[in-house]
């Protein structure tokens, strides 16, 4: 039994490395996209609002698996072949960007407009007030939902096995066909995800507690 776990554990850990890589890469894409679009939404341009709203609604109301299939299989059909790893990062990143746009927007909305006005009144430029006054406060407010999103993202990476990205579930499925240790392999895969997400969940709890103390 132990020897078996050792044999199966190697490939699964290899998959876990990819899982972490995809999670981190998609997280960066989602944060850049979400923060950028939330900042754009602070503008008064109607058309910009409109386009961002469409993006957010479409990506939040369709399954990430459909988005991944469109990027991986759909784009290949029109002549754009995207490899599975970048397709996974782009798909999860675009999906997360829609979620985080709302998170950051809510974060900005939670900050009293007096903060910005005061910053401008003491002679800061709009950029300086954003950089030194608004963003640091938004950051503290958005940290817990951002953390929760990161956990959800980590678990969502399991579905990219469907577009053959070599992460935990992908290796698990391959191991099952080669060893027939179905139960053991999937239990180990589940434990591996748990081992990755549990510490992250405790960290987010810590942020939440600290934020409550701060508010």
């Amino acid at each position, binding site marked *: 039994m132990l020897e078996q776990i050792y044999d199966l554990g190697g490939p699964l850990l290899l998959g876990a490395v990819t899982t972490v890589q995809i999670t981190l890469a998609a997280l960066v894409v989602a944060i850049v996209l979400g923060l950028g679009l939330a900042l754009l939404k602070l503008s008064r341009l109607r058309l910009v609002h409109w386009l961002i709203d469409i993006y957010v*609604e*479409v990506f*939040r*109301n*369709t*399954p*990430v*698996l*459909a*988005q991944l*299939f*469109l990027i991986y*299989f*759909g*784009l*290949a*059909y*029109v002549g754009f072949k995207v490899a599975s790893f970048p397709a996974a990062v782009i798909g999860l990143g675009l999906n997360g960007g829609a979620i985080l746009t709302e998170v950051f927007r809510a974060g900005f909305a939670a900050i009293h407009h007096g903060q910005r006005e005061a910053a401008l009144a003491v002679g800061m430029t709009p950029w300086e007030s954003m950089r030194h006054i608004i963003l640091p406060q938004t950051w503290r407010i958005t940290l817990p939902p951002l953390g929760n999103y990161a956990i959800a993202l980590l*678990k*969502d*990476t*399991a*579905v990219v*096995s*469907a577009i053959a990205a070599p992460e935990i*579930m992908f290796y*698990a*499925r391959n191991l*099952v066909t080669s060893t027939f240790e*179905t*139960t053991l*392999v*999937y*239990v180990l*895969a*589940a434990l591996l*995800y*748990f081992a990755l*997400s*549990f510490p992250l*969940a405790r960290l987010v709890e810590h942020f939440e507690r600290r934020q409550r103390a701060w508010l």
Partner: protein
Amino acid sequence: MSGFLAVYAEHWSSWWPQIAVATWNTVLLTVFSFALAVAIGILLALGKLSPLRLVRALCTAYIEVARGVPALAILFLIYFGLVPLGIVLDAFVAAVVGLGMSAGGYIAEVFRAGIQAIHRGQREAALAVGMTPAQSFRFIILPQAVQIVLPPLLNMLIILLKDTSICSLISTPELMLRAKDLAMMSFLPMHLFLLAAVIYFLLAWPLSLIARRVEARLRRGLRAASP
């Protein structure tokens, strides 16, 4: 563009009966797994607030595991992983059980937060006027808790609807699987996955709008009620 749409017109008569059945299955899958998740969630929430230490520990452990493991891993474990142990489930049943067990962990936390948000005095007052603990829960705690848990529950329903798509990976005959099969047969992945995405959107978007409405209304209501 018109060429792109013409493909739909050409295949529509052969696609739509299958797509319609698959969409209906997706709706059924969502409803059944949500019902199971709510039942599991309520039991776990009550268990987590139980005076018995062992019950509390077991429920907490379940919630942590269900929230820490991807739904896809749970689905694979139930559908493939139980077969060597002699438990063979139909793909639809496995999907309902897997999604329900996974979402149950989240819903448990929603209900626990809802129940705990209600002041202890409410229950004490109910007991003081002669209600049994069951009556105080049914008539005093539950109606108030529902108001608090309704918005997160609706959001969970939307997430569940979208998550049913991953059941295609254990060959549950729902929308995503049908779209994939038709895409493979016709070599038209762009058309079919786009069609599937549009159908999911048409199912999920109205729910999103309702959820936002309910949330806004309850927030107004709660503000009006608090002194």
